[in-house]
């Protein structure tokens, strides 16, 4: 099992959800986050005074998928979130040891 964590632009969330639904991924955890990578934030001038936006609002999506579904999920997610500009975000993939469904103690991929 793999965990996919993707940090994307907030306005791309709906597109990404649609795309994931098309490849059969319904379950996900979504959170509002703030941060910056190389995009760094930017400077705005308001009324002649500069103010810096250090942390940009982003959305984080977390999904756990069986190994066999990893590539198509990542592709769908990446394609939907891409605008080609700085600040599109990142996708991180890590391995998951086990999963347990709390309700009935199902384990492993069966719990996904």
């Amino acid at each position, binding site marked *: 099992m793999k965990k996919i964590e993707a940090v994307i*632009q*907030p*306005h791309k*969330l*709906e597109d990404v959800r649609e795309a994931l639904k098309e490849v059969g991924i319904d379950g996900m955890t979504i959170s*509002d*986050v*703030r941060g910056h990578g190389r995009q760094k934030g*930017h400077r*705005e*001038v*308001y*009324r*002649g*005074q500069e103010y810096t*936006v250090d*942390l940009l*609002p982003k959305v984080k999506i977390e999904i756990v998928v069986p190994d066999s579904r990893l590539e198509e999920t990542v592709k769908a997610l990446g394609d939907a979130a891409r*605008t080609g*500009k700085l*600040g599109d975000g990142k996708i991180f993939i890590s391995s998951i040891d086990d999963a347990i469904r709390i309700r009935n103690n199902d384990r492993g991929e069966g719990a996904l």
Partner: protein
Amino acid sequence: MTAGAPGLLAGLEPIKQKFLETGDGLEMVRQRSDAVDRAVAALFHEAFGEQAASGVALVAVGGYGRRQLFPCSDVDLLFLFERDSAAEAARDRIAKLLRGLWDGGVRASHSVRTPAEAASLAPDNVELNISLLDARYLAGDMAALARLFERLPGFYAREKQTLARGLDRLTRARHAKHGDTIYHLEPNVKEAPGGLRDFQVACWLSQLAHAEEAAANAVPPEARGFALSPPEQHLPAETRDAWMEAKRFLFALRCYLHCFNGRDNNILTFENQERLAERAGASPQDAAVWMRDYFRNVRVIHRLARRTLDEVATPEHSLFTMFRDRKSRLSNPDFAVARGMLYMRHPEALVQNPGLAMRLFEFIARHGVPPAPETERRIGGAAGNFREYLRKQCGASSGLWFSIASILRLPHAYQALVVMRETGLLAALFPEYERIDCLVVRDFYHRYTVDEHSLRTIKTLHELRAGSDDALTQHFSELMQETERPEVLLFALLFHDVGKGGWEGNHTTAGLALAEQAMERIGMPEPERETVRFLIAHHLDMPAIMTGRDLADPETARAFASQVGTLERLQSLTLMTYADISAVNPEALTPWRKDLLWQLYVATHNQLTREMEAERIGTGAAVAAQLASNYSERQALARFLEGLPTRYLRIHGPDQIRRHFQLKPVLERRSVAVQLGRRHSLYELVVLARDRAFLLASIAGTISSFAMNIVKAEAFSNRDGMILDTFIFADPNRTLELNPSEADRLTSTLEQVVLGKIDVRELLHKRRTPAATHRPRIARHIAFDNQTSPNETLFHVITEDRPGLLYDLASTFSFNRCDIDVVLIDTEGRKAIDVFYVRSKGRKLDDAAARRLCLKLERACSGSEE
């Protein structure tokens, strides 16, 4: 005799079945309590036997003590031992009894005490002391209980103040946890304001209030139950039917919830609302209608609890007393403030003069003093007269809008509106509000009913106006402080969701129609109406753009800017969005959302400012076609407009543009046209002239020489070299108001100055105030920008405002042979925010020249002469 698990359960199941048939919750909790009594007594005898029971009594306390045992409530037991040592020895027996109860499916919670312990104050646990108000004998040694009952009346008489204050504190904390409102979409029927706990608090407080009487009539030792006096005996009799009905309703409701959920869960979820609506004979779709019954009943209990709390709980420390007494000085011939509450001196006058109610609401909105229960009752009683009064008042000349506006503007407007709603006067004033009264609209995020949500938006903005420590929030706070007529925005908020009441489809469209009829009725002037319409129609735009569009894409700001049109509207819409999201639930406006909203605001603000300042009207034909009546006028107007910044069209309405255009013949005849008028508390001066060097500085200097304080200014020029300058200024010494002739002298002096017949420096010479010696409190910021405009260099100047500042700045540009194309002057308190669009010899300045000019502007700000 054995009373094992099956025995206990068998007794309880038929009671539940009977309840589900009859719906009588009061009967159910009594029967359950009696059934559990029998089981507990049997288990006690089994565990303790005859001998061990000496010196120990088993006592029911809390809800169980009152014989009110809800299906999944805990059974509260007190083991009362005459001696500590006996309690220690009885550990195993107690455990055995409790096990028996658990096995029987009843959750027990217990405590072990001696009579002396039980009747001593537990400052950290007022609930424990209070729970003994309901103590009731179950089994064991009656003498042990008699020992407690001897002590209790004296104890309560002695400690009643402390206990009442403790209850007051707990109740306030509990209410605060539930947002201080009964109007929740999914309320907790026990803990939320107006819930069962509130009813109990009212009962306890009235018992405590009469503790002395009980102490005088000592409880006979053989008494099986202890009560200072029957708990409901002292509750207000005139509303007895209403609160008895509400009590019956809530008891049944909680019983149902326990039966449905199978545990002590008291949240009236959407799903349960549907089930209960169905039980009441309605369809599940009518759950929202059924919920209005709930709110009606809960409102009665909430009022009862507040009333008893206000009467019993006295202030804790002198600071509060001082504060309260200070408030009592607020009293006036109509209203008196006593014990921190508002009373009417002549309540009977309400019948003759229902308009008094509006003054009362204004008083509340100004001072935040809650009305006494008596006052609230009186206002509610006069609702009929008030309705009749309003019927006669309607229309443009009524002045109703002005009384409403003055309430909305005041810092405690929310409190006033809540009182208006509770007394039915809000619905009398705005029958549109009846549609959303207690309306539950299901939504995953919303926590409150539609009416409560709407009123909360107003509370949010007033709180925002007070400022904030958080830097991001402070941005919005400043926007709110700058808003010139917040009442229009607040009115739009009051009506933004009214369309949710019983309409299919788009609530915005429905809301617009309802707001329209209300605005007509209260005689709101047209410009304000237009703003309200715009705000309601677009109140969902910003949230949609914030998360649905790329804020970094300039196209997002461009599209939204063209929709909003003016800075004023952008500001209002931003604040409206801020308030609307905040009032959804306390956590809805996360820093994340706040950030998105602010970014959208700034991007749009900058877009608007840029395009309004840099873009020029290419052809005035389109506007002229709308405003002019014939061909030749159309031609002349088009020419008048060409070359002025686009901003000019955005900030001036058709009437103003026409007025300015009418000055053109004067300009042609006399080479100058000056028009002076009043605008609210300020003055507006419009000058049309032929452009020449030092012109702006001369006009600004002349105004300053009359000791006027310029707060806003705009200087534009058109393609023909005509300048159109607008100055808004304050008259701090009321010179113009007190000496009408001074107005004429001001305009004629100006004409002379513009024509070059008077040198402004001479005028200023007499008036010139020495440069400020104190360190300026506003951080100075002077910068130039060569990117924004294709043909001009922009200079931003932010500095501490002072008389003559604009004259000095404009002179600096002129001395340096710069032409000023556009000037925007704004002041916020002591801060002057000025933007100049400047050319030198028809071109932008190069960076080095602009930097040098910045240094000179810096000196000009300090008041050093060029």
